């Protein structure tokens, strides 16, 4: 079994700060971490790998990312935690990609791996973009079934995966045949810590860094050129009004709140 886990480097969530003067996000590349949802995805993949190992079946986990060269550091950390290989798609041609162009790049990366992917695992969404589009778009691009918002892995029998997913109405237990794409909720698992042996071993593992040309990507479909959407304007939202202060002691405040609540619920 070959599992590909897609990971994205995102600003460490506690580090996201706005510059009050320029109203831009203060970002420091060195603070990037693996998107927490993708970290859960990696744990799910490693769990399947453990089960395969227990059953004597071969299983390989590859972490895949599109990003700046520094992302290699994060992929190496994934390997220290138990992944086998890493592939980083890094090229100026990938820059400025929206979800469609990102999906295309990732699909090219998967297509160029020496072993086909039986299962592709993505986080349900990224904390910085919050579109939740990559998983379902990737499934469409690969023409494989997709299960989103996986809450729990129930088991894997042969090439059939049993999963619990969240839906608009509640939860469903579903079954899907591989190959497939799944996206995982953040609390579906907790990523294991790297072992010292893992960290040492990961230092020696070569991480493949490939350009758009290396993965035979059509330049018209990557990066800014391949992105149908574009941001035309970004602005700081104006607050409609300052918060109205409710004064007095607790009892007086509560009395005022009762009226405000009634009004709000009308």
């Amino acid at each position, binding site marked *: 079994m070959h599992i590909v886990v897609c990971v994205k480097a995102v600003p460490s*969530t506690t580090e*996201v700060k*706005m510059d009050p003067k320029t*109203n*831009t*996000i203060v*970002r*420091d*590349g060195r603070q990037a971490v693996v998107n927490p949802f993708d970290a859960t995805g990696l744990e799910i993949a490693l769990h399947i790998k453990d089960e395969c190992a227990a059953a004597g079946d071969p299983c390989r986990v590859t972490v895949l990312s599109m990003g*700046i060269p520094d992302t290699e550091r994060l992929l190496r950390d994934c390997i220290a935690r138990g992944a086998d290989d890493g592939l980083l798609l890094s090229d*100026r041609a990938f*820059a*400025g990609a*929206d*979800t*469609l162009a990102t999906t295309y790049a990732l699909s090219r990366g998967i297509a160029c791996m020496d072993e086909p992917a039986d299962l592709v695992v993505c986080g349900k969404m990224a*904390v910085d973009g*919050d*579109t939740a589009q*990559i*998983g*379902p*778009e990737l*499934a469409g*691009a690969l023409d494989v*079934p997709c299960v989103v918002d996986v809450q729990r892995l129930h088991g894997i029998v042969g090439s059939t995966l049993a999963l619990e997913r969240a839906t*608009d*109405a*509640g*939860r*469903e*237990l*579903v079954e*899907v045949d591989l190959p497939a794409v799944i996206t995982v909720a*953040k*609390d579906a698992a907790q990523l294991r810590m790297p072992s010292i042996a893992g960290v040492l071993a990961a230092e020696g593992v070569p991480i493949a860094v490939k350009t758009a040309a290396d993965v035979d990507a059509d330049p018209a479909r990557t990066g*800014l*050129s391949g992105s*149908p*959407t*574009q*941001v*035309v*304007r*970004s*602005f700081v*939202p104006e607050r409609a009004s300052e*918060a*109205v*202060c*409710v004064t007095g002691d*607790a009892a007086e*405040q*509560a009395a005022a*709140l*009762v009226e*405000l*609540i009634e*009004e*709000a619920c009308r």
Partner: protein
Amino acid sequence: MSGLVIDTERCVGCGRCVKACASAGVELVRREGARPVAQPTGSCIFCGACVDACPVDAIAIEKDAGASEAELASYSGIWVFAQVDDEGRVLPVALELLGRARALADVRGCTLTALLGEGPDAPQDNERALVAAGADEVIVCRDGRLAVRDAEVFAHWVCDLARACRPEAILYGATAFGRELAPGVAVRLQTGLTADCTVLELDGATGLLQQTRPAFGGNLMATIVCPAHRPQMATVRPGVFAAPEPDWSRTGTVRTVSLDAAVAPRVRVLSREAASHGRSIAEAERLVVVGRGIGSKKNLPLARELARALDAEIGCTRPLVESGWLEYAHQVGQTGVSVAPKLLVSLGVSGAIQHLAGIGGAKVHIAVNDDPDAPIFGAATYKVVGDCIEVAEALLDKLGAQR
């Protein structure tokens, strides 16, 4: 060739672009005997921060032109995907979208179509409700394969229709299902998709849909367009637009279509379980959210009691989930659930940026915190400075006395 284009004639060399750039994608180059000018470097990621920062409009991101105007002009009409619930009723978000799309279709002078995919036993009056909400036309497909919400099956259906009828725009509710379906359609039609829009405007002359959504936790709003691909597609959270008053005198056409016989679901549903913790907080109309400021776990029952008195669901901030006080399903914020209640009462929530990212949709937000400078007040409608336990107890008293 796409890229960052800097007009060196206009550039005054002020360096604001360099400061605004988080990825060292632009630098100042000094030339002999001339003022410095900005120039892109190899690490530009086209985020547009420098474009906004430039005081003299010297920077632009240029893209190759895509489809020709004639090609774009062959698309017309706005579609709204009308999701139905387990009982077969159209979800409120579909009606909300029709209300907004009606105004957009009037600006453009085009037809507004609702897409209704449902099982063979669905109620017969959904079409009427969609027309009453503003649709000119309802395209309906009744098929057993559409009785279960399988996003891939629905995506094939929507894509086949879109290829045949060429709509200019398709809007979806940002429900769990809508957020799975829309990307499936986008990738198959190779078009753009903007998630979770809060503002939709349409240029009457060009038909260009301006889709505005919060970025970076709601601190920035970004307006996104899809200039050279059709259909333009967006998802919109429930509660963002007001549902229109149904106009039962409106008339519209109903067109019945069939689903390609080759389409088959590939995900098998073995069992279903309705949400156990009541409604999801994402759809809650009233919400009480507690933060670390409530002090101790022993104050949780008080918050629950207040929620009950208000007929509200209960939510919390991330530290409370991490301390094991409440389950993750209750976590509001960037890594939890985004909420859009009519009434939000937050108790002892300081207002970390990641939390604020999830509450932007609240209509009326009453925040109680003992710190008058807490960031939560920046996002609140009403500011109550005080001990949140005392205020909650007093409020509970007043609410109790009312009954």
